């Protein structure tokens, strides 16, 4: 596995505020990597530093094996990006805007029309000659994505790409990202739609107030779950029985049962203890933690 993005102690200060504080990111080839965090936690600032728009106060960045921002001219042609929303010339159509961008990037002139057409088809945007300023939020977002896909990319950096997309647009975005990932593109994405992220991402990192509080496979983040749901009629008996199992405690009482904190105990043994204490256990299951729960727990919200 080769490292596509790696940062060491990446830090950005604005005055006395550290927007990003000692972040070590590690994104491998083929990852669909989510950078998560509450508002103002430093996601966009991190992306801007990766792309050479904002200069880091300290720390190192390796992008596609080269040091940034000094190797920007070598690495950035292979990187497509969407940074805090799309931005285009309002009086030009989407097609004209992409054509201008393509010309500015010095791509071959002869294949320009075809490239622009393909990029627009890829994001399913067909707005004809309508000027950009007349686009809806979702159309703007799609055009931004089309610009990121103007040429084959090794890495995509997408800051909240689903912003403003309707449910079918969100689903199309999900499918597009998966398809791009399958074709070998590494994707770094930030989003507040945690259910979407949970569905598609392979790895995730969570920022809180500029610091990295977690970075691992999405599965591993989720399997730190330590609670079980017990469905039973004998709630009082169950509470008594739980009291006699060392470590285990009641997290929550629901109309049809309890949620227990296992606190390291083996689930099957807890189940056996309940049954042998005469509790009528109708259902006993590990509580699947959602990414949202992990997120809220780790970011202290």
């Amino acid at each position: 596995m080769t490292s596509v993005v790696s940062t060491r102690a990446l830090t950005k200060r604005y005055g006395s505020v550290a927007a990003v504080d000692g972040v070590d990111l590690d994104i491998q080839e083929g990852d669909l990597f989510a950078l998560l965090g509450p508002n103002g936690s430093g996601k966009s600032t991190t992306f801007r530093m990766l792309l050479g728009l904002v200069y880091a106060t300290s720390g190192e960045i390796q992008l596609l094996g080269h040091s940034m921002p000094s190797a920007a001219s070598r690495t950035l042609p292979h990187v497509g990006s969407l940074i805090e929303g799309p931005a285009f010339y309002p009086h030009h159509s989407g097609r004209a805007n992409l054509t201008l961008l393509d010309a500015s990037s010095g791509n071959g002139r002869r294949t320009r029309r075809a490239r622009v057409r393909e990029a627009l088809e890829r994001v399913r945007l067909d707005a004809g000659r309508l000027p950009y300023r007349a686009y809806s939020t979702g159309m703007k977002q799609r055009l931004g994505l089309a610009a990121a896909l103007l040429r084959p990319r090794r890495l995509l950096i997408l800051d909240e790409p689903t912003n403003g997309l309707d449910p079918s647009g969100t689903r199309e975005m999900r499918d597009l990202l998966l398809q791009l990932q399958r074709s070998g593109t590494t994707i770094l994405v930030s989003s507040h739609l945690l259910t979407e992220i949970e569905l598609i991402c392979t790895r995730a990192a969570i920022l809180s107030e500029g610091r990295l509080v977690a970075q691992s496979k999405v599965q591993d983040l989720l399997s730190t779950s330590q609670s079980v749901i017990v469905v039973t009629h004998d709630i009082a008996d169950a509470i008594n029985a739980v009291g006699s199992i060392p470590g285990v405690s009641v997290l929550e009482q629901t109309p049809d049962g309890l949620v227990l904190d296992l606190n390291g105990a083996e689930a099957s043994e807890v189940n056996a203890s309940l049954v042998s204490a005469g509790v009528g256990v109708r259902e006993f299951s590990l509580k699947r933690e959602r990414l949202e729960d992990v997120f809220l727990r780790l970011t202290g919200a």
Partner: protein
Amino acid sequence: MFAVELKKMLLRPRTWVIIALLAGLPVLVAVLLRVTGIGPRPGEGPAFLAQVLGNGALFPAAALALILPIFLPIAVSVVAGESIAGENSLGTLRYLLVLPVGRTKLLIAKLMTVTVFVFMAVFIVAVVAYVVGASLFGIKPLPGVSGAAIAAEDATWRTVVTVIYVAVSMLGVAAAALLFSTFTDSPLAAVFGALAVLVTSQVLDLLEAGRAVHPYLLTHYWLAFIDLFRFPVLWRDVVRGFLLQGVYIALLLGAAWANFTTKDITS
């Protein structure tokens, strides 16, 4: 990159509206002069205007003298001040930079585009003024400002040098606007910054108390092209004007480059 920037500038309706307004003012003045037959008394009013009634060959120079102090520098400030700040406020700057277009390269492309605009504007105003001057007042040999007659052919090269001189004079303002343009993401603020420099320079130039700094003021030699129409040509101030603009352009652009290549793009 320069080609794309040039195309963006040339395709903008704004560019042509500004140039049309710049050329329109002298045309309006010429028509008024022709209809009323009342010119400023010799030695008064805008340069050359008194002589234009008798000779249209002087009208291009007169037209440039008309728009030079205020109208033209405002137009140049608007175009140059908007160049980086406008992209910044739209957010398109960040997408240009990650293409990637190097920051130095982008700045040079913007500068070249503004330069083309300046030369284009001055040239078009001069051509329009020539046509209007010729048709309303007729072309005669130049009497020259000092009175002795000069051959008619001489007006051509003097006018060409005037066009170049006026354009280069505007490049100092353009460089100032470009510098401010790298500091702010509000195009209006950048334009205002350049105009503040301009007004300050013109006010100081009028004050007797500012005598010591006069030769170093951005606007001090702007009207020196009048000397091109003397007989013989008085080159001293024109040459100083060229050199002074060169120094201003180098300093202002150096500062613009130093700022733009090191600043965070957070728009």
